[in-house]
């Protein structure tokens, strides 16, 4: 995870001004009173590059849009606006063979190990069906490869006949990883893969994902809300708030020099075993809803470093702090 130089700087995924708005239709009664459709702006104008071989951590609280962003990249949602490129090709226009190729190369691991495996399929089915889709025609070959995959994720051959409910959360997550690997992917969106697991199992899965990344030269988009986990696994970290990326930098840099007030508050809110300064920044209020986000900078309603009227009126532009560290905040807009 510390191999900063080893990954190529080639962008694997490129997101240009992507937006995803969910249109919510009010009830019939509400419409009779003149209520119009409202847009839930889950992802609002995101620009992002994910480099080949890296682990990009995506962190933010509930409702910030990180899961939606992960699904947009995988073409599980269509963007309302904007372009998403994978290996240089715009995924919106992929068809037929090219689309199948993309789907094979870009996989997902879900958060809830209890809801992401088909309870009526055995482990054998769960792993061999993707193998079949990949083109492995011989059932004996599929069985052999399934066993190899199972062993790689730390499970044993005898598990192949079991059903998901017979496994613990950590084991189910391993099965999900084996399933994702069956497609020999290049890129995996890991959507909170360890959040539902016990602490000691989290470490096992994190280490497993690390080993697999090295062995298969994988690129990860690691979505999580646990900052310590993000710190540990990521090469770079992007912080999201209400559909926008407010700050992005290399991991060490972000954690040592957080600039955006939200990042600062987030980091100070994490309870740690060895806290240097006892000062905790407690943010007032709750996250506003993405249905009617605040005008101007989305964070201004809770910001403790608010500059002034400009924060309420204008959305801040992205500014560079230097060396791949970017912030979207009026406090830094003049720096250019």
């Amino acid at each position, binding site marked *: *995870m*510390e191999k900063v130089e080893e990954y190529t700087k080639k962008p694997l995924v490129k997101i240009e001004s992507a937006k995803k708005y969910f249109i919510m239709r009010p009830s019939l009664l509400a419409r009779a009173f003149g209520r119009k459709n409202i847009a839930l702006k889950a992802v609002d104008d995101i620009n992002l590059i994910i480099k080949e071989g890296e682990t990009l951590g995506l962190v933010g*609280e*509930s409702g910030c849009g990180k899961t939606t962003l992960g699904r947009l990249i995988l073409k599980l949602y269509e963007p309302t606006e904007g372009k998403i490129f994978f290996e240089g090709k715009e995924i919106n226009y992929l068809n037929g063979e090219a689309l199948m190729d993309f789907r094979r190369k870009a996989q997902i691991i879900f958060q809830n190990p209890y809801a992401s495996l088909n309870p009526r399929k055995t482990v054998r089915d769960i792993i061999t069906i993707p193998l079949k889709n990949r083109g492995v025609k011989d059932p004996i070959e599929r069985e052999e490869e399934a066993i190899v995959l199972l062993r790689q994720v730390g499970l044993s051959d005898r598990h192949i006949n079991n059903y998901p409910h017979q496994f*613990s959360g*950590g084991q189910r997550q391993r099965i999900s990883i084996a399933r994702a690997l069956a497609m020999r992917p290049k890129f995996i969106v890991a959507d909170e893969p360890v959040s539902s697991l*016990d*602490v*000691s*199992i*989290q*470490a*096992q899965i*994190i*280490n497993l994902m690390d080993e697999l990344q090295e062995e298969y030269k994988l690129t990860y988009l690691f979505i999580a*809300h*646990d*900052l*310590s*986990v993000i*710190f*540990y*696994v990521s090469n770079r970290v992007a912080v999201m708030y209400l559909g926008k990326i407010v700050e992005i930098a290399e991991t060490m840099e972000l*954690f040592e020099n957080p600039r955006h007030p939200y990042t600062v*508050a*987030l*980091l*100070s*809110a*994490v*309870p*740690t*075993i*060895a*806290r240097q300064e006892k000062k*905790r920044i*407690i*943010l007032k*209020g*709750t*996250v506003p809803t993405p249905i009617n986000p605040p005008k101007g900078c989305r964070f201004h309603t809770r910001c403790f470093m608010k500059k002034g009227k400009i924060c309420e009126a204008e959305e801040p532009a992205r500014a560079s702090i230097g060396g791949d560290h970017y912030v979207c905040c009026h406090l830094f807009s003049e720096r250019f």
Partner: protein
Amino acid sequence: MEGNKLLEVNNLTTVFPLRRGVVKAVDHIDFELGEGEIMGLVGESGCGKSASMLSILRLVPYPGKIVEGQVSFNGEDLLKKPSAEMRKIRGREIAMIFQDPMTTLNPVFKVGEQVRESLKIHGIISNPERIFPRCLNRRRKRAEQRRVLSLLEEVGLPSPEENYRQYPHELSGGMQQRALTAIALSCAPKLLLADEPTTALDVTIQAQILELLERVTMERRASMILVTHDLGVAAEFCHNILVMYAGKIVEKGPTKKVLHNPKHPYTRGLLRSIPRITKEKVRIKSIPGNVPDLINLPHRCAFYPRCDEASSKCEKKEIELKKVGTEHWIRCVLYK
């Protein structure tokens, strides 16, 4: 934080006799809690921490039953009290805050009503349905309402008058947890049992709730047992820690001692497996294996199969909790 011991638990044992065998959910635990003290009960799923809390309040669900021990609260053994007396203690002298506020609050009653209910049941306010002159009734009602409103304000709800009239689903997770805290505090309990009160909440909201709990505990000179799986939370908010594994206490002592100088291999393993935000990335080392099946546990150290410092001595019958320093106790053969 010395003072009289508010709570003394000795040899508390709770079992669940199931068809497959007996689960000793709580296995001879003992600890003391003084006035104004916040104790952390730390462990992973299935270790018995929630069962311990329910045992103190005698709320263990069927088929579980408390089979041994004393729970001395203010000098009186709760386990020997008739149920009518226990009902007076629950919610009044000892209050519990549960993990998931969405499922704990009654969805069909307004928040204000639920707080009032607690006050009514414990006779702090009287039942307004009694026959009284109307004018006195109204005054009484308003006085009661003011009392509830001041509670809602104390827990930091943003608009107490509005929140009073709202239903739980109209509040965010953090606000619901504050409402639950208001219910718990309504009768000025001397002891608060908080069972993972922030697990379902976002990091910044978690910080708010923990700060709130810490503040009200201090202000009211109450004591709190904070059940959590998050060692960081325990580190920042608890004076003392109890580490549980498979129903037993394996280590207990002042927080700083246990977390900075852990002696039990499980505690050490746990601390090594948690990613931490530090100046340099430290490799995490996971604890191999899984938490044991609690049914018919063999008579030896439950952690033995996963312990990297195990020896044949560990297989002897029962290992006692031994003192290894001032107030620091360990259950392990490595320590005499």
